[in-house]
């Protein structure tokens, strides 16, 4: 039985963000920007979409007068990512 892929996670930046966040306990914006090689504006938009879907939570604070954004994956996000990965594996077997 093949389920449709989660459209939110087919975007490369969002998928990369989710991949990092499932591995770590918390991650800051600058690291996500570096690893996704995206612009600040684009990454902000993608993070907002993930947060609006309840996949991640975003915490903003100030450190030495500089704004700091930290992201965490939620339980809903972990479940969605796991399902997406399982489905990808199933589709990959068919592709082969």
């Amino acid at each position, binding site marked *: 039985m093949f389920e449709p892929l989660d459209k939110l996670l087919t975007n490369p930046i969002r*998928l990369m963000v989710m991949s990092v966040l499932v591995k770590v306990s918390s991650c800051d914006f600058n690291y996500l920007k*570096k690893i996704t090689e995206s612009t600040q504006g684009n990454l902000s938009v993608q993070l907002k979409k993930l947060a609006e879907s309840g996949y991640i939570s975003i915490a903003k604070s100030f450190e030495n007068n500089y704004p700091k954004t930290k992201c965490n994956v939620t339980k809903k996000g972990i479940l969605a990512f796991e399902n997406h990965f399982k489905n990808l594996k199933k589709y990959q077997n068919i592709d082969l």
Partner: protein
Amino acid sequence: MNHSEQINLINDAINKTKEQLKPTSVNFIFWGLLISIMSIIHYSFPELIQKTAYSSLLFWTLIPVVGMIFTIVYNIKIGGRIGYETHIGRALKLVWGVFNIAWITLVIMSVFKKQNPVQEILFLLGVILLITALLIRFTPLIIGGIAVVACSVLITISPSINVLLINAAATFFGLFIPGLSLYLSKNNV
């Protein structure tokens, strides 16, 4: 993006986000050296360290507390530079945080009991080192943890042994040497 490309992208992101063990090893090196040197100083100049009733207590609390502050500041700075905290990293932070509280509690308890806390502290340190070693899967640290627990047992079975020398040996071989080998290794979790 096709399915294989998506899987590759996931693998790539996960592989790039590794536990950074080098900064962790600096903590072991620092504490191993500090406690070993302090033990040797106390052993070599007992008349200086035990000059008054509280001088020894101050020596063994003030310097480690300064060391603790230095370690906390260093770890916060490194954490900010790395940009993420792994689940193992968070677990280690909590375990060592609990150790710090337990260490201070043991020292305070020993003052009331008028008893040397080295044996209890070494046992606790050995257990925490073993937990850390098993979490990061690093054999030299497992050996170091066992060595520290063994030193604690040694104090129990032979009370005549010099506690300061045992303390110096335990922290040197249990913290400094494994810390140095962790620093020099290319291992990452």
